[in-house]
């Protein structure tokens, strides 16, 4: 037990400020928090759906929850049910086998709702595109509000993409 406490003490706090924004803007994390405070009563709930990814995008989505990025500090959290969600974050091309599941998840999210297509697959079809088994980009199946490109987008790009959409909407 002491060894664990000792390790925790030595590890210290890891959470970092977001890297400086490209635009001459205030620190984006703080701005995001303000947007969420104003539009979402301080809490933005995200439901993710993998509609046909290679699982690379999921790995980076996990990473934004690690102590370095700690996305929860801005009031953003991932939820288990679409009925609790404000935002749908979709990865991958939409495989035909997931087409209905994605539509049903989208329908289950209460209005008003936002949709982000994360990664090149979700954004434009990426390496897989359209085929007998794939509908290609997410926008071919449900309305999309923002695309975060990258294969996969880094945790930083993912955060920034969410922030940009919040500022716009």
């Amino acid at each position, binding site marked *: 037990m002491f*060894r*664990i406490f000792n*390790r*925790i003490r030595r*590890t210290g706090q*890891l959470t970092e400020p977001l890297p400086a924004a490209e635009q001459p803007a205030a620190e984006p994390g703080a701005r995001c928090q303000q947007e969420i405070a104003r539009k979402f009563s301080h809490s933005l709930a995200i439901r*993710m*759906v*993998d*509609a*046909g*990814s*290679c*699982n*690379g*995008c*999921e*790995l*980076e*989505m*996990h*990473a934004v*929850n*690690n*102590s*370095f990025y700690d996305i929860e500090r801005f009031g953003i959290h*991932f939820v*288990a*049910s679409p009925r609790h969600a404000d935002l749908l974050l979709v990865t*991958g*091309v939409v*495989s*035909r*086998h*997931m*087409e*209905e*599941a994605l539509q*049903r*998840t989208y329908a289950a999210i209460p209005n008003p709702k936002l949709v982000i297509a994360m990664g090149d697959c979700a954004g434009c079809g*990426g*390496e*897989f*595109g*359209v*085929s*007998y*088994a*794939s509908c290609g980009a997410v926008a071919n199946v449900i309305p999309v509000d923002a695309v975060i490109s990258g*294969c*996969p987008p*880094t945790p930083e790009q993912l955060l920034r993409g969410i922030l940009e959409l919040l500022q716009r909407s």
Partner: protein
Amino acid sequence: MNGGQEFNVTPGRVLQLAAGLAADGLAEALEPSPGLVARLSLQPGNWGRVAELAAQQGLRWSAVWGDHCPPQISIRAVLFGSDGHLLLETAVDEQRPELTSQSPFYPAAERPERTLHDMFGVQFSGHPDDRRWLRHQAWDENDFPLRRDFPRNGKRSTATTGDSSYPFPAVAGEGVYEIPVGPVHAGIIEPGHFRFQAVGETILRMEEHLGYVHKGIEKIAEGRDLAGLTRLAGRVSGDSSVAHSWAACQAAERALQVEPSSRALALRAILAERERIANHLGDMGAICNDVGFAFAQVQMSRLRELWQRQNLELFGHRLLMDRVVPGGVCCDLTPQQISTLQRAGDCLHRDIEELLPLLLEYPSLQDRLRTTGVLSPEDARRFGVTGYIGRASNLQDDLRRDAPYAPYDRLQVRVPAYLEGDVAKRLRVRGEEVLVSLELQQQLLHELPPGALRVACPPPGREVEGIGLIEGWRGEMLAYLRLDAESRVLRYFPRDPSWLSWPVLEVLLKNVIVPDFPVCNKSVNGSYSGHDL
């Protein structure tokens, strides 16, 4: 590490089986392709019988795939023995594609054979399960997407409905109830369906229904050049990008008789070990987190993040995608970068040596992990599961040691293995494999040979084929490639180790309580994408 136990590798020998089959007239020996010990041509009627004999002699089943070369469909299977890999070949007529099944002797062949039916229309006599597998509702029962005449974009333009009619066996009995889960799960995870049949808290039976992320990888590979194929291979399963692209490139290089430089091969191995380490770190944290031990999750995700940042800084991609290219690699290391990596490696080694005992000795964590989700050594052998799952259940096979390819042929690979086969031992094997991989990385960095990063892969001028076999972090990974005269892909088949690990998840869940499903699943961690293709 082995506690004085005697450990298994697959006992059968390929050459012995091959000689016996040839003597009995059951098979005809062909010139083995590079990387294989033997290659046999079989009559379709002997397909099942040969599997029966191979199983009796203790060979492990590895893969089966088809290739439509009108008017025939050629079928190939790979088996593994302690002396290496055996390729079996046969062909059936496209009008009457019938073959005897290998599933009665090798349960691992069951789903791949069902897939051969879905994709090529091959019928297996004696198969225990006649249900579809990868096919849901995106194409008709009488259409076979991997046949040459099936259009790449399919025959339907209407929306595809969900697959609610998949025939799960019904349960009956007092107090038995069903829990359907998925395809969309509660967490950040890939989609798939699990059907639980439970009494009270206890799982009587769990059945998987996969194929939700089937996106037609094999079909869209057709016609690609080698660079395009390698990019696609690196996305068969994003967490195994290095291993899949290495397997595909190895297959291509063997087909084209091209040998990358020893520097390029050493760099590939460094990338592959780094991929193994990153995944083991992430999953070790996640396994502990699934039983509420957040300390491990915080520590391991910290180490993983630092590791990935170094990937970006020194190799140019956090997940190391697109670093392996046909003929070599596209990244190099300066002496200064080498010492940076060595220092980071030492640092991680110290961290793991400190953290691993904490996890392995912490009573309330071990109480949850020990005897949970047990896969017996007999079942591991029966299903021929590879990687950490096999090793935690005493099946040690590791291609880096047992069928070594360059540069592992000049390295000593230590393979941790245990008998208990529970979640605790799968966690332990992965922790110890991190240490082994770190030692390998340090050794490779220390002796990084000179050489070109990339050699040319000139078009062969005729049709060629090759097989790649790589030890990915999940286990044995296979890629088959057939190229035309211009090096364009005629057929690409990647076999992710998840094909071998998904079936054992069903086995090790028997009598486990429903709340322990997440931790058992995480300890197996099959790739949905790598399986569904």
